[in-house]
C-alpha cells in the first residue's frame, strides 16, 4: 500500500537526490510545478473534449468522434486551430490592457493549485493559512475580467464585464461563508489539517467526511452553487451569455488569447472542484476503512471527476438566470442560508456530547430541520408570494 501510494513522492525525492544539496529545494519546486502544469494542462485538454462528448450524449448525439479514436485528439485540433487563427485586436481597443487581460486572468489561477493536497503528503506547499491563500488568488480574476471587458471598447463586452464583476463579487461571499463551518470544526485554515480531520472512520467503517453531516451536505451544495457562479458556468454564465450579449467580455478576443481565457476558465473550475473535494469529500481519504489499500491520489482523482461530471450535467440541463435574479439569489438566498449553516454546525458540534444510543439520528433530524425550514422560507421570500398556479381555460 505504501509503495504505490507514495510513488510520486518517492520518485520526486529520488530525482532531487541526484542533484547537489544546495540546489535541491529549487529542483523539487521546479519538479512540482512541471508536474502540476502537465497534469492540469492535460486535464484541461481532456475535459474540453469529454465535456462536449457528455453534452452530446445527453442530447442524443455522439459528440466529437472524428479526430483520433473516440475524438480524443480533438483538443490537439482545437489547439492548432487556436494557434493558427488570426489574433484580431479592434482598432479602438486599448492595446496594452487588451493584451494584458488574458495574462492577468490565467497566471494567478495556476498559483491556486499549489495549496491543494492531491494525495498523502502530496501538496506542494503546506501553508498555515491555505484557504485564505486560495481565496486571495480567486479574487484576482475580477480585475482581469474587467480589464478584458473595458479594453475591448465594445458595448457588448462592457455589459459582459459589468455583469461578470457583479456576479463574481456577490458569489464570493457565499463561497467563503460556506467554508467557514469546515474551518471551525477542523480547527485550522490549513488544507492538510482539514483533510486529516476527516481521516477517522466510524464503527461501521464509514469515513467521517464532512459531507456526511447535515451542515456538511448543506455546505457542499452551497459551495457548489457558488462555485458554478464563480467559474461562470451554466446557470450563471451571464458574462458570456451567448444568446444575449454575443460573447460578453470575450467578444473581441480571437486566436490564442481566446484560448487563454478558455484555459483559465477551466483551470478555475479545476481549482474550485479540488477545494470542494478537499473540504467536504474528505480529500484523498477512502470512503470505507477496508478500501484504504487503494492509492490516495486515485481517490482524489475519482471524486474530482465525479464533481466535473456534475458540473457538465448541470450545464446540459439548466437555462440561464437573469442578472437581477442572479444577484437576488445570492444576497437573499445563499448568504443567509450559509450564515444559518454556520449555526447548524455549532448546533451539531454542541450536541456532539450526547451519549444516548439514539443521539445520531436525533441530531441529524434536528440539524436537518434547522437547515430545511429557513431554506423553504428564504425560497418563499425570494419568489415573492407564490402566484396562483396557471389555469388554462379551453374554449370549445
Amino acid at each position: 500500500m505504501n509503495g504505490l501510494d507514495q510513488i510520486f513522492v518517492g520518485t520526486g525525492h529520488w530525482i532531487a537526490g541526484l542533484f547537489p544539496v544546495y540546489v535541491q529545494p529549487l529542483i523539487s519546486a521546479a519538479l512540482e510545478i512541471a508536474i502540476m502544469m502537465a497534469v492540469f494542462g492535460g486535464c484541461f485538454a481532456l475535459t474540453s473534449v469529454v465535456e462536449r462528448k457528455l453534452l452530446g450524449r445527453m442530447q442524443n448525439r455522439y459528440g466529437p468522434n472524428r479526430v483520433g479514436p473516440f475524438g480524443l485528439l480533438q483538443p490537439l485540433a482545437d489547439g492548432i486551430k487556436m494557434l493558427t487563427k488570426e489574433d484580431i485586436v479592434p482598432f479602438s481597443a486599448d492595446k496594452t490592457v487588451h493584451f494584458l487581460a488574458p495574462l492577468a486572468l490565467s497566471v494567478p489561477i495556476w498559483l491556486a493549485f499549489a495549496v491543494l493536497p492531491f494525495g498523502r503528503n502530496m501538496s506542494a506547499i503546506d501553508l498555515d493559512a491555505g484557504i485564505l491563500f486560495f481565496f486571495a488568488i480567486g479574487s484576482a480574476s475580477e480585475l482581469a475580467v474587467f480589464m478584458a471587458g473595458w479594453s475591448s471598447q465594445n458595448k457588448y463586452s462592457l455589459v459582459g464585464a459589468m455583469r461578470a464583476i457583479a456576479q463574481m463579487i456577490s458569489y464570493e461571499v457565499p463561497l467563503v461563508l460556506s467554508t467557514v463551518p469546515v474551518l471551525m470544526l477542523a480547527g485550522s485554515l490549513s488544507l492538510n489539517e482539514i483533510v486529516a480531520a476527516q481521516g477517522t472512520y466510524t464503527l461501521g467503517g464509514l469515513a467521517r467526511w464532512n459531507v456526511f453531516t447535515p451542515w456538511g451536505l448543506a455546505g457542499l451544495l452551497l459551495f457548489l452553487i457558488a462555485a458554478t457562479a464563480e467559474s461562470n458556468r451554466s446557470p450563471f454564465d451571464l458574462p458570456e451569455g451567448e444568446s444575449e450579449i454575443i460573447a460578453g467580455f470575450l467578444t473581441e478576443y480571437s486566436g490564442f488569447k481566446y484560448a487563454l481565457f478558455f484555459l483559465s476558465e477551466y483551470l478555475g473550475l479545476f481549482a474550485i472542484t479540488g477545494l470542494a473535494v478537499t473540504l467536504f469529500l474528505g480529500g484523498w481519504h477512502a470512503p470505507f476503512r477496508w478500501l484504504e489499500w487503494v492509492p490516495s491520489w486515485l481517490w482524489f482523482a475519482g471524486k474530482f471527476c465525479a464533481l466535473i461530471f456534475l458540473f457538465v450535467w448541470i450545464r446540459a440541463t439548466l437555462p440561464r438566470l437573469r442578472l437581477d435574479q442572479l444577484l437576488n439569489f445570492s444576497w437573499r438566498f445563499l448568504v443567509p442560508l450559509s450564515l444559518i449553516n454556520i449555526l447548524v454546525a455549532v448546533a451539531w458540534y454542541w450536541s456532539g456530547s450526547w451519549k444516548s444510543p439514539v443521539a445520531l439520528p436525533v441530531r441529524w433530524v434536528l440539524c436537518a430541520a434547522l437547515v430545511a425550514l429557513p431554506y423553504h422560507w428564504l425560497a418563499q421570500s425570494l419568489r415573492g408570494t407564490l402566484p396562483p398556479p396557471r389555469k388554462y381555460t379551453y374554449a370549445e
Partner: protein
Amino acid sequence: MLNEIAFLLCASLTLAGAVAAMMLRNLVHCALCAAGAFAGLAAIYLQLSAEFAGFAQFLVYVGAVAILIVFTILLTRGADIQTGRAGSSSSWIGLLVAGLVLACLVGSIMSSPGLVRLPAQTANAPVQKIGEQLMNQYIMPLETMGLLLTAALLGGVVIAMREPAKANPSAR
C-alpha cells in the same frame, strides 16, 4: 542574498506602480497600476513571511478595493475624458508642501523609541495565535470596526436607494 534581490524586486514593483498611478493620463490605467502597487505591497508582506497579512492584503486590496476604484472611475465617466497635462501650473507650491510633509514624517520616525536596531525576528505568527489574540486581546477594536463598516454599508445603500426614487418616481 536571494532575500535582498526579492525584496528589491517587490519594492521596485510597488514604487513603479504607485508612481505610474500618479503620472499616467488614462484614469483606468492609473487604477490598474494602483492595483499593481497593492500586489507589490502584498508581496513584501509575504517576503517577511507574514502570510496572514499578505494574503489578507491581496484579497482585500487587489480583490475588492481595486474594483471599487475602477467602478468609481467608470460611474463618474472619468474613463473617457482625457485629463490635461499631468502636472499643475504652480508646481513649486506642490513641491513645498511635499517637502513639509516629508520633513515631519521623517522627524517623527527618527525620534520614535521603537527604532532601536533590533535584528528583524521572523514574525511567524501562525493563524491560530492571530485568531486567539483577535478574539481575546483585541476584541474591542474588532467589534467597533465591524460596527463602523456596517454603518458605512447601510449609509451607502440608503444613498443609492434614494437616488432612483427621485429620478423617476412614477416609473418604478
